[in-house]
């Protein structure tokens, strides 16, 4: 029941942050545009006045694509690497504005102002940055450990089993376990952020430990709430691909309609991100209040 009420309450809270959503969406769009405009110019320059590329309008054409890449990959490559760097920059940006989002969600009854958002973001940036470093390192270490374990298991399975279906299922189980742990760490990260804002915590490592204990203690609620929210963008993507294949991007109108749907999808992804935090904030409020009594007790002997 707590999951459902948190889920709906998070949705309502997110819905009331339209200005915030729009701000983040515009920033995302502008950042993508920064690379996309020169990318488009490069495509135009490389393709010149050739008619071959019209084949790409109706469908994917391997020969046109490969000939293009064989002769223009050097021109395209910088945009790919720039996009990846942009992603990393966007991660920094996310770290920055998550404090603001949580603050806005927390005082949802007040009127939203951008100034309040930026101030809150700035206030928590340093703490969230350290928290992000710890959690990213944890993610990487766990990923490496799991990769090594899975490689050893797969190597052993390869040597001992008669057919590849066992290898496939072993790898699949390994990937699922990794994803479950990955999601668990995301949940821990989220509650660590919430605790930092709710309790004005300054020490990320200590907060992570507390968040770990909290998440583990309320595993079913915290984990399944996150999974429930994670389903939203997955479902939206499935719907998007279906719609795109129906509409097609073969005419000016088709391109425009798909573009609008794409941007709606991006907007929904941002919405979901805030929705997750909003729901978790509510859930934390429900559990957190009960734990107020035990506050001050030593955690792991600290």
């Amino acid at each position, binding site marked *: 029941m707590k999951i459902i009420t948190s889920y709906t309450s998070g949705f309502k809270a997110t819905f009331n942050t339209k200005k915030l959503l729009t701000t983040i969406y515009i920033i995302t769009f502008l*950042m993508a545009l920064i690379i996309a405009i020169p990318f488009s110019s490069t495509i135009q320059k490389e393709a010149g006045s050739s008619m071959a590329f019209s084949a790409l*309008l109706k469908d*994917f054409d*391997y020969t046109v694509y490969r*000939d293009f890449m064989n002769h223009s990959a050097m021109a395209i490559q910088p945009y790919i690497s720039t996009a990846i760097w942009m*992603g990393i920059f966007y991660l920094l940006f996310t770290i920055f504005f998550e404090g603001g989002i949580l603050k806005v969600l927390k005082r949802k009854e007040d009127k939203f102002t951008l100034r309040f958002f930026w101030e809150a973001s700035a206030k928590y940036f340093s703490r969230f940055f350290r928290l992000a470093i710890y959690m990213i390192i944890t993610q990487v270490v766990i990923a490496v450990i799991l990769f090594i374990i899975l490689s050893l298991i797969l190597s052993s399975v*390869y040597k001992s089993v008669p057919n590849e279906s066992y290898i*496939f299922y072993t790898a699949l189980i390994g990937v699922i376990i990794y994803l479950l742990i990955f999601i668990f760490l995301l949940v821990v990260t989220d509650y660590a952020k919430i605790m930092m804002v709710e309790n004005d915590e300054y020490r990320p490592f200590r907060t992570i430990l507390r968040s770990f204990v909290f998440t583990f203690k309320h595993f079913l609620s915290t984990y399944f709430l996150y999974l429930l929210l994670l389903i939203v963008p997955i479902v939206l993507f499935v719907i998007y691909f279906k719609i795109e294949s129906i509409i097609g991007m073969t005419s000016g109108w088709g391109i425009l309609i798909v573009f609008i749907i794409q941007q709606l999808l991006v907007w929904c992804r941002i919405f979901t991100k805030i929705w997750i935090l909003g729901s978790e904030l509510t859930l934390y409020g429900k559990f957190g209040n009960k734990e107020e009594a035990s506050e001050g007790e030593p955690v792991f002997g600290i």
Partner: protein
Amino acid sequence: MDKSYCKISPFFFLIIYFSFSTILISQTIFKTPLSPRNASYDMDVKLNPDTKIIDGFETLHWKNLSNDNISELRFHLYLNAFKNTKSTFMKESGGQLRGINIDENETKSWGWVDVLSMKVQNGEDLTNKIKFIHPDDDNADDQTVISVPLAKAVRPGETINLDIKFKSKLPKIFARTGFADDYFLVGQWFPKIGVYEYPGIRYATKGQWNCHQFHANSEFYADFGVYNVNITLPRKYIVGAVGIQTGEKKNNDGTKTLTFHAEDVIDFAWTASPIFKTAEATWKHVKIKVLLQPEHFAQAKRHTQSAINALEYLDKHVGKYPYPNLTIVDPPLRGLGSAGMEYPTFITAGCLWGMPDGIRFTENVVIHEFGHNYFMGMLASNEFEEAFLDEGFNTYLETRIMDHYYGKKTSFVNFVGYHFGDLESQREGYVGMNNPKIAEDFRTAWGYKDGGYGAITYSKTATWMTTLDRLVGRETMDVIMKTYFNRWSFKHPCAKNFIDIVNEIVKKKYGNKFGDNMNWFFNEVLYGSDICDYKLAYISVKNVNSPLGVYDSSGTKLFYRYHSTNGKSIYHSKVAVYRLGEVIMPVDILVHFDNDKDTLVSWDGKDRTFDIEFDKPEKVVWAKVDPKQKLLIDVNLNNNSYTTEPSSKYRKKYFVKFIFWVQNLMTSISMIF
């Protein structure tokens, strides 16, 4: 009645048994030999699945077809390529083939073959006269070729019969042969005589042995013969082999002996595994048997149907497959090093559990390997020296078969919206090389010093064969392929033989349209390594309402400031074509005007630039060089066209997609916090 039956029954069954055995053993496949059958083998071999050793005895019947007295014989001992790291094969390959590495630290990984004795029947013992030779390099450690001097020369037309006792240790599956657990693919495993080439065969001007060492890139070359092979192994094994099975006998020691018989073939290979599951199909006179891994049984139809497609297509466009059967082996995962290999009437495919139908790897391998039955098997070209005649020609037909049955743009992969055809894939294999000029096609398989064997031999050949196909037309190309097959099957043709046929057929069909002959084509694509790239450089259109300026007329000067041609403008349109590559090919240019009419202009393609100019009331809107994409060998087809009214829709589409992709990349990365 009953009593009398009891009395005669043992005798009766004995008669039936021996009659049947005799029928089976003496069964012939072809009433008239298809080949010279000058290298035939009778073999008795026993496999020990524990030690992976084959104890073998072979009687070789070798006939001297030349006019020479031959006092030396040469044999391949291919398995010695896997004996140690000093073999030529291992040195060239670095211990890996097709991405699979030999496990150097494991004793059982290595393979070898020893000739224990060699005797002329009723004649001299040659055992102590055997010596290793290295006709291709100075590698004294290579033991893949032996020379055996004869005290008494084999005279022209004479047949020498040799009894050879040998022992073969199979390697852990590597480079097409060996074992993986209790799966065996036994190939290149017995002492095999080389080819004595004499005037009339390929380029020989005098008689000489053509018996090359086993190289990393090279495959094989052998004479035709009849094989009678008895294979003894534990009863639990299911066996497939070249030829047809003619007998099976259960022995008292828990083994069984299977007899195989093959005619007019150049090699003998076999497979054994206790877990094969068998699927069968029939196409006309050909019985197809697939020996599958149990977990792949659901994909049996993919194997049989693609084999039927290949049989049907090659029968129609190249020639008849004369053999009565085809065996397809599906190797296990740990035996994938033996996948994708060809022997006469016997091929290895390759598939993976759960492989989606849209990824047609299995179909591709079956079709490709089956095609070898024509080029490696019946035409039996020299794969050491002219690998393109087998691999390249076969790949060309593979692309035709794949594209015909599975669609030009979908034949290789058609999965979750991503698709491409086999011909597209092969062309990309060549034009997508870092250095497409790395080597010319016409060179020995081991002559590719810095890589490129696969891309040039398979992909480039398939691409230029398709180019030839499109230049002369499919109908003519089919006549060429049929003539080549009918004239040269079972005779070891060379490139020159093929070129002669092309020249003959094209001349007959087109006269001098392509010049005196087609040698220019082969000089470019086969003997040369340059690239082909024609570019439609630009189109310029000017309004030229001439005459303008000052003109002398009857002693007076007339000044024309503006002159209208009945109110219609005249446009000077110029279409410029560049030849960027060194390869020269005749090429057409299609010019389209704004009144929707087209003009086709032919160009010999020789000059560096070619301008086409028009003074017409219509403007040129677009032009295409090689509009039908005949020159598939052109390394950049995207620059073959030019339009004065370029569409921006595709750019908008990818602009929009790129924005979406970057946004999702950013939001996905940000998910980790």
